[in-house]
């Protein structure tokens, strides 16, 4: 059956709630309204107020309460209305959730869902890709699915995971993509990258909505006789370094692509690991393509200039191909 990305996430949560009575939802406007992006639509009716908890505007309380409930054996799925507001619950995530297992052996099996990304003219506060705040925090798992299939399989894995997972859903994908989902109860493992497309001349390492930009360019370059492999990371931490390195050792050329700001973005981490661990295999510099170091501007021409796209990628791909 075909499903959109948003529907896939909804299904995944729904199935987990059916499967495990300890799973419950907490967030702003997730009940009668079904969430700002309708991910939880219909869940209040079906599962009731006990399991679909509408909260005041209080991200720190949402994350904190999720942590506390998880100590008691529940499996909370918290929604941030936009990833941009995760900064308001930041301390609870990076200091409480992330560190409890290490500090005193207390698992924190929570999921924090965060609709992220630009391209919807949301401006500086409704477009952020801030995953790099969390990839630098030991103890957190950071997941960003690009496809509907992965979104469903990964949200289910996230809910079953015994560590805190920050689950970034790209807003521009919610209704843009539609795919066949596997039948039945399937999961996609956290911590495993996916070879989104096989190729032999160059690797593009990317994740989330940028997978489609890479795909577009790969198709174009194929016509020019350049075969591009796309590694869709899906999980940033823990990172599937092996899949990246295997691909790079095969193609010898690599571009890292993400939508987040360039400086301090996770692309630096990937490039650094490649350089350190596959240095001898490299036939050219590791390039990064990312948003420039500005907030996400609102006005369409600025936002377009801001977001990495096929054109910008193509330029670097061609340059590197000829290197």
């Amino acid at each position, binding site marked *: 059956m075909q499903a959109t990305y948003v529907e896939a996430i909804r299904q995944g949560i729904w199935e987990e709630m059916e499967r495990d009575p300890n799973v419950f939802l907490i967030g*702003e*406007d997730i*009940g*009668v*309204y079904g969430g*700002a992006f309708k991910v939880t639509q219909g869940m209040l009716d079906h599962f009731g107020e006990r399991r679909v908890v*509408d*909260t*005041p*505007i*209080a991200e*720190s*309380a949402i994350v904190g309460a999720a942590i506390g409930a998880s100590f008691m054996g529940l499996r909370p799925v918290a929604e941030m209305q936009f990833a*941009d*507001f995760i*900064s*308001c619950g930041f301390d609870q995530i990076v200091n409480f959730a992330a560190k409890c297992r290490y500090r005193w052996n207390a698992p924190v099996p929570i999921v924090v869902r965060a609709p992220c990304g630009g391209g919807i*003219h*949301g*401006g*500086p*506060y*409704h477009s952020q890709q801030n995953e790099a705040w969390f990839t630098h925090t030991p103890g957190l798992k950071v997941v960003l699915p690009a496809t509907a299939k992965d979104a469903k399989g990964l949200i289910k894995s996230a809910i079953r995971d015994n560590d805190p997972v920050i689950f970034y859903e790209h807003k521009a994908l919610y209704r843009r993509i539609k795919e066949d989902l596997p039948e039945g109860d399937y999961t996609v493992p956290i911590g495993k990258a996916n070879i989104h497309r096989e190729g032999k001349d160059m690797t593009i390492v990317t994740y989330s909505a940028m997978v489609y930009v890479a795909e577009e360019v790969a198709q174009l370059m194929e016509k020019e006789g350049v075969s591009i492999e796309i590694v869709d990371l899906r999980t940033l931490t823990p990172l599937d370094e092996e899949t990246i390195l295997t691909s790079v050792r095969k193609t010898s050329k690599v571009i890292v692509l993400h939508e987040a700001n360039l400086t301090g973005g996770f692309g630096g981490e990937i490039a650094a690991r490649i350089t350190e661990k596959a240095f001898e295999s490299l036939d050219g510099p590791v390039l990064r393509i990312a948003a*420039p*170091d*500005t*907030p996400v*501007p*609102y*006005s*369409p*021409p*600025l936002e*377009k*200039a*801001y977001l990495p796209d096929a054109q910008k990628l193509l330029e670097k791909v061609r340059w590197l191909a000829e290197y």
Partner: protein
Amino acid sequence: MAAAKLEVVRTRQEPESELHAELARKFLYYMGLMREVEDRIERKLYRQGKIVGGVYVGRGQEAIPVGSGLAARPDDVLFPSHRDLALYLIRGLTPGQIFAQYMGRMDGLTAGREGNMHMGDLKKGLVSIISAMAASIPVAAGAAMALKYQGKDNIAWVYFGDGASSRGDWHEGINFATVQKLPLVLLCNNNQYAYSTPLSKQMACANVADRAPGYNMPAEIVDGNDVFAVHEAAQRAAAHARAGLGPYLIECKTFRMTGHSAHDPADYVPKRMFEEWAGMCPIARLEQRMEENGWAAREEIDETRAKIRREADAAIEWAEQSPYPDPSTLLDRVYES
């Protein structure tokens, strides 16, 4: 300091002076202009696809920014929230600049970097909100602290909704401001919803003002759809803050006569609430009062409306001429130089 006054404070029944008539005309103009500009934004430009980002309007709540904004001194500093468009108009922003802002044009206050009500202009004493609800409150406290530091008798005015009062920043900001006795007026628009969330899911107490005694801060509750009531409360609050007695909270009871944003049909709101509150329209109530008190004839009121419509027409035309920002400027203005 007195505890929260929990009754609606009645405004004088029959203000007769020409001063009142004068004020009423100003109220009418700014409330009408806010209504018109926002109607154009929400019901025309947004639906025509000319505004591509979020749209949040204050329909039915115009008395709050207008009543208070005209009580503020022009050199006070204002921290509007997202339903307080009139504050910008009162401070001299033109409707054209507002349309341009919403449309992401160069003549908006943010030169296309930001959309909708996320705008400010320090020279006009208007500080832009950030999106995180209540984050402006500690910032406004800091501005108030600076005014006191500088020995000025200006004050800061900060606006927020019922929903914002649930956030940690709300508490931290007000606590700090009350400890420091800062010249700060806190204006709550309690429109009974935060997005789709009714008050009963936001707070266990009946009123936002019930929290004021916990900060040893005076508070009052006013009929937020009565512009004179808001204005008078704002004057009391400002006098208090300006006298160095510390923050003062006004809770305006009102209702959001629309969805949370332009894409929200607000199905979760009981229909009868819209009906009930339609009868409480602050603009209609003011017009009626003006007529009853002989402050203005119907024709005069109609002419004000017509003038506003013409202003809006011209402003949209002007804004549509405004260029989009040049993408080559994308990187400008992250740092000073």
